[in-house]
């Protein structure tokens, strides 16, 4: 991969997070360029989710910096980071059980644009516009859950909930998507479908993607570059195939999965 000319979209430098003496993320540095997709892999407990939390603001790292487009994110609350175009999905799903799939996407659209004005509600100006429902339909179609649009998510399975989260994250047209194990709970066909969607997004919308995933086959299909973490540290980085051939990586993985 050639040196990028423009500065990276997301710059994570020296991020360290400690939980009561346990180093969850230790001095991790990652750059993500515009439109680039990176696979973040590693055994359970490697610190991948914690790193996501540091980027999105659910956690504050002890050390290090996180910058988006040269703007430091560390002092911004989560919701402001989201409005700057950082979207994510969660390993432990965070859907809104009372709402239908469509409502999830409407909320996401409005939250990103911060158009939650009380006076609009009071003047009954808050119904869903045709423009909004057009965008919602488009994303539902893309992710492949259009037929479940009116279903309350509480009655969906785990796999569908992950797709709802993905659609919800995408509808606000983020510049950076952090996906935390999006394929767990999906079957093989759905996973292939998902890989397809992620590739399309990257190619057509120039979305930058940071993908945490245990299904290495899928990661290989989607990403340009892979970063391997173990016990809080980055142990390898580079093109997917090269990285996977690295003995240190094989050791880290076999230590867990064998």
């Amino acid at each position, binding site marked *: 991969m050639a040196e990028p000319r423009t500065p990276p979209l997301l710059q994570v430098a020296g991020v360290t997070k400690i939980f009561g003496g346990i180093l969850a993320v230790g001095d991790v540095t990652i750059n993500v360029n515009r439109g680039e997709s990176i696979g973040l892999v590693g055994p359970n407990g490697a610190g991948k989710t914690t790193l996501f939390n540091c980027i999105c603001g659910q956690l504050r790292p002890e050390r290090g910096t996180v910058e988006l487009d040269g703007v430091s994110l560390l002092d911004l609350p989560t919701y402001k980071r989201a409005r700057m175009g950082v979207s994510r999905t969660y390993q432990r799903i965070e859907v809104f*059980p009372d709402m239908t799939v469509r409502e999830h996407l409407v909320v996401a659209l409005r939250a990103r644009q911060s158009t939650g004005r009380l006076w609009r509600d009071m003047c009954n100006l808050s119904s869903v516009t045709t423009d909004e429902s057009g965008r919602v339909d488009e994303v539902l179609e893309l992710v492949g859950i259009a037929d479940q649009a009116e279903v309350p998510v*509480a009655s*969906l399975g785990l796999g569908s909930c992950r797709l709802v989260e993905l659609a919800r994250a995408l509808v606000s047209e983020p510049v950076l998507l952090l996906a935390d194990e999006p394929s767990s709970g999906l079957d093989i066909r759905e996973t292939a479908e998902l890989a397809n969607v992620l590739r399309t997004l990257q190619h057509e919308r120039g979305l930058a993607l940071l993908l945490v995933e245990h299904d290495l086959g899928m990661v290989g299909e989607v990403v340009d570059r892979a970063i391997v973490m173990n016990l809080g540290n980055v142990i390898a980085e580079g093109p997917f195939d090269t990285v996977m051939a690295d003995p240190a990586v094989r050791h880290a993985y076999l230590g867990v999965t064998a």
Partner: protein
Amino acid sequence: MQHFLGFAIPGVPFGCTYAIVAVGLVLTYQATGVFNFAYGAQAYVSAYLFTRLVQNNHFPVWLAFVLSVVVLGPVIGLAFDRFLFRKIATTNTTAKLVTGISLFVGIPAVLSVIFGSANQYSPPSILFDPGTVYLHVDGTPVNGSAVTAVLATVAILVALGLVLRFSNLGLQMRGAVESRRLTELDGVNAGRVVAVAWAISGFLAGLAGVLLAPTYGELQFNDYAALMVAAFAAAAWAVLRSLSIAALAGVLMGVATTTLQGYLPVNSVWSSAIFTSFPFIVLVAALLFVPGLRRLDRTKDPLSSVDPPTPPSVSSLRAPQMDRVIRILWYVLLGGFVVSMLTWLPTTWENVFNAGLVFSTLFLSITLITGMGGQLSLAQATLAGVAAFTAAQLATHFGFNFLVGGLIGAVVASAVAVILALASVRLRGLGLSLLTIAAALFFDNTVFPQALSGGHGQSISVLPTWVGLGVTNPDGHAFFVLAMVVLLICIAGVQLVRRGTTGRFLGAIRGSETGATGLGINLTWQHVLIFALSGLVAGIGGTMGAIQQGQVSPGLFNYQLSLVFVVVVVTTGAGTVEGALQAGFGFVVLQQLLTYVPARFGGNSLVVVFFAFGALTYAAHPEGIVEFQKRRWTLRFERLIFHTDPATAGRIPGVSGGPTGGAPPVAVVEPAVGDHG
């Protein structure tokens, strides 16, 4: 020094009971993850029975003690565990709180239904005579109740400490609250550990109850509510974790209270209010400054990530045809109601329904804060009172029209609500409920009496000249028209917020705070916003209530009413406007119907018992048991009349009687997942 001890020593018995109650609270919380809101009621039951057995039935004191504390205390604790809290161990904080609050409200009501509402006087002491001075500490006399309290407290706490340290029980308890399932994987019977904790804490409640009793001449539930808030404060400083800090904080608070009281000017408002306002200040300080309290609701079971998504609360889907039918029925009902009120209904019932309109308005504020905001505020009656008192003051001193003053008052109530919201920004669930009930007690004891103290006596009458429009004329329908219009405006406002972006955002926050902020929703702003709206509506309701009652008095807006309101609304459905209306009318109509029943059946207490039982079902039916039943019947009619597809019905678990009824909802819709691929 003697001065100081003279003030401090009378505080010791209070401190001891605070300590015992705080320890009991922490113990249950540690072992079961439940913050037992009903704890004060448990203490009251034991004290009540103890006193009654001694005074009315002439039991020897030791026997009464054994029956009411050693036997009844643990039995109540075990019953709570077995029949209530065990079933809801995995539900959210709100459900546990509602269950506790229902018990807190329901238990004294049950007592007065059973034993009548006559109070018990001069409760006896379990060991030493309260009237006798047994010793002097540095010249300060120490009477029997103080000696008893100290001895009993020290003995019990030392014994408890030894048991927890030198048996496996302590360790297992700590394990049980971290993750019941993990503990069970280790081969520990977590259910038994939890039951033991409930039994011990039940005993402690009973003990605290009888120790506190002789310090008052008359046994009153209010004193136990105040005891509980004091214990909340002590437990809060212990971060609901450390038994020894809880005990220490309890004793210190008791001592500090009487000491402060001693140095305050005698007969000042503050001197009498210190007993309830000092715990409030300590509690608020803890909520604001003890960082560990903010994380209480967020600690999650490490195994919970393997759970399937939360099961659906009953979906509110109904067929469009059914929607139309119901809407038409509502309009017919509304029309019939208005015509009846204006024509043939007797004045008694017109008054009852007027009160229903007022309560419905007030209850809409609970729809906002609890149904939409997902937070339990225990100060809604207080907010109503803030508006009413403001209006009364403006009318008295500046000659404001009461309606205009009420609007200003509603804005003031909204501002008070915003202060509560800002103070609780980092708190959720439990912390917020504690903060609001403490605020309610503070207003009851300090602010409202102060607002009266312009020579008004017990209440301020709402003069006809204040209101105008003939609203206070008992023979006309002006009040009805006014209350109806106000209610309709409030309903429209609430519906607009509910259906609008704000409603959607709040729905998202209720579903998942993490998910909602991750999308760009500002939680703090939404939190403050819904408090402000709720305060506004509560204030409007309060003003209307004052006009309807013809007076403004602290008794109309006390903390107990706030608790009762929550229990009532949660029973009929906090999530919908219909729920608030059902609550408002149900509450007053039931009260009126009970006036036709002989008083010995308990009168208004029976209404409270009724709704308290209703609210106990909250964990199973968070949408409200009445709402649940209504949807169930609607669904049956729907199927009968429109022959709708049973698959739609299957989305509502446990509702349809058909073969799919019991199946998890996933099974019904899941096949569709494969279709899109």
